[in-house]
């Protein structure tokens, strides 16, 4: 089979930077007190501030600012002592003021980083630098009639003025997979901080990507023109769009030989059905936005005390938790990854369970195999899970004590989930009783008496022959523990000789 080429042998390097817009989890908009609830009837959540009526005065939402600082700290950013707001001017029907309030030269945070790694080791772990994270207001929603192209466009301004944090990475990613991993990790950080619901379907998280190639030219690299890719509605779409775009750009390079600077920056949209990118409108030059400080909004100073306070309240960082699960609880890298990816409350459930049953590996198995499967089947969250960590720990301890084997313990677990019962109640309901040792020995002895051929086989060294006795024992009494039956039978046979 043909091996895929090593990156070193590709005739080019891929260079990717991402811009992520995250809607912050506030109740009201950034500069007015209109509700941000998703799904309200069109144009019912607006006021003179967000639809740009003359004389309205925007006032900054304190929670939006706090959530921004919290996110910036979680992304290891520097927070300057002072920040301000600027107007970014452009005309578009979903931007009623004719400008967007954003941040230009003094963003609230800059120069952070996010570590990415792949548990399958398809790329080397790396630190992706965060250039800046700044706060801005969202625009409204345009609904175009795609059938005719001539009918009016409809505008809903409910979303206008919703707080967005724009997070801009440096172009530090060199494959579509790295970009995808960055997004997964970033989303995890945001979810652990509780600063956004990150729902891409509802537009709470939007991704634009900048990508170009560096073509190998003997000892140097030739950069090609940069393309901005938009309209990607899932992380999977980002990954596929970037894979497509890298191939396309190499074809264009071979055809035209265009270098960075030979052609203006192009904007292309991802078509998820056709699986291609297509050119979009030419982007105005940055200077055409004619940024200037917004005179309606005063600067914000951030004190070291305020930052300390937010730092103290910072939620867990996924990378730190993964490390803790490995060092404090002895889990493997893969298991730590699976648990952390499920979110902070599942990790908490795991640690409570591990603590209560005293066996982290066992706890991890139960959470991954039984709890997570049940959550998936029932399409529910760990908060709504019917069996508490303490109750599940009781069951695990009974299994550890040899009172139940794995498969019977699973039956009990199912019953506990279905009927909201304790392990004892579930065992009674299922007719599971503990078989006392004397009873078990008697049963084994009678089986050995009835099966001299098997005894002979075992004596001759064929230990696996014992399996048939275990089966017969279970048939006679479903409550017996197979491991115990096996052990007792082997011991009795040993005593015979």
């Amino acid at each position, binding site marked *: 089979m043909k091996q895929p080429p090593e990156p070193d042998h590709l005739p080019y390097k891929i260079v990717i930077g991402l811009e992520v817009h995250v809607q912050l989890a506030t109740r009201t908009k950034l500069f007015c007190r209109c509700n941000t609830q998703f799904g309200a009837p069109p144009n019912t959540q607006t*006021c003179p501030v967000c*639809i740009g009526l003359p004389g309205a005065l925007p*006032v900054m939402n*304190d*929670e939006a600012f706090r959530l921004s600082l919290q996110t910036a700290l979680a992304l290891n950013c520097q927070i300057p002592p002072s920040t301000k707001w600027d107007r970014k001017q452009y*005309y578009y029907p979903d931007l009623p003021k004719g400008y967007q309030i954003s941040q230009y030269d003094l963003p609230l945070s800059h120069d952070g980083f996010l570590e990415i790694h792949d548990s399958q080791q398809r790329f080397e772990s790396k630190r992706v630098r965060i250039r800046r994270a700044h706060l801005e207001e969202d625009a409204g929603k345009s609904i175009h009639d795609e059938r005719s192209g001539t009918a*009016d466009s*409809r505008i*809903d301004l409910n979303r206008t003025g919703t707080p967005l944090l724009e997070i801009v990475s440096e172009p530090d990613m060199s494959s579509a997979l790295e970009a995808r991993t960055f997004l997964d990790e970033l989303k995890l950080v945001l979810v652990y901080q509780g600063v956004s619901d990150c729902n891409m379907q509802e537009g709470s998280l939007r991704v634009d990507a900048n990508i170009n190639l560096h073509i190998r030219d003997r000892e140097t690299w030739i950069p090609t023109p940069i393309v901005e890719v938009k309209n990607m509605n899932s992380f999977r779409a980002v990954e596929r769009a970037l894979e497509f775009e890298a191939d396309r750009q190499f074809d264009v390079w071979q055809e035209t030989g265009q270098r960075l600077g030979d052609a203006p920056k192009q904007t292309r949209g991802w078509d998820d059905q056709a699986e291609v990118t297509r050119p979009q409108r030419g982007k105005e030059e940055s200077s055409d936005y004619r940024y200037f400080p917004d005179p309606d909004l005063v600067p914000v100073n951030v004190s070291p005390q305020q930052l300390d306070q937010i730092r103290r309240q910072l939620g867990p960082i996924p990378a730190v938790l993964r490390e803790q699960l490995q060092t404090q609880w002895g889990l493997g890298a893969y298991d730590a990854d699976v648990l952390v990816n499920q979110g902070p409350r599942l990790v908490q459930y795991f640690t409570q369970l591990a603590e209560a049953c005293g066996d982290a590996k066992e706890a991890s198995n139960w959470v991954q195999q039984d709890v997570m499967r049940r959550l998936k089947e029932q399409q529910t969250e760990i908060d709504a899970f019917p069996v508490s960590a303490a109750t599940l720990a009781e069951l695990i301890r009974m299994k550890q004590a040899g009172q139940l084997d794995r498969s019977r313990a699973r039956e009990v677990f199912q019953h506990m989930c279905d009927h909201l019962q304790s392990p004892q109640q579930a065992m009674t309901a299922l007719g599971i009783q503990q078989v006392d040792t004397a009873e078990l020995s008697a049963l084994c002895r009678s089986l050995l008496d009835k099966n001299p051929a098997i005894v002979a086989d075992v004596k001759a060294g064929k230990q696996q022959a014992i399996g048939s006795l275990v089966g017969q024992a279970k048939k006679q009494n479903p409550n017996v523990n197979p491991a115990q039956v096996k052990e007792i039978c082997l011991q009795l046979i040993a005593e015979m000789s």
Partner: protein
Amino acid sequence: MSLTRQDVEKVALLARLRLAPSEVDTMTRQLSQIVDYVQLLSELNTDDVQPLAHAIEVTNVFAADQPLDSLSREEALSNAPHTDDEYYLVPPVLGS
């Protein structure tokens, strides 16, 4: 004159304004007068002056994240030239 016709045409394009040639002449003259007037400020020597982000010395003005009533949709749409009573209607944006 500090502004050229090209400057005015560019700004008009960015503002989505269509100006007749005579209007471009008028605008070039009038906007130049404004820019020249503001230009007076550059006579001051500001070498030793720190840049200001804002003209008044107030900082950190915030409001609590508590929802208040929005406009009714009827009120919100009342100034729009075209609506369908639910949405604002504008000429097709993607109609090229």
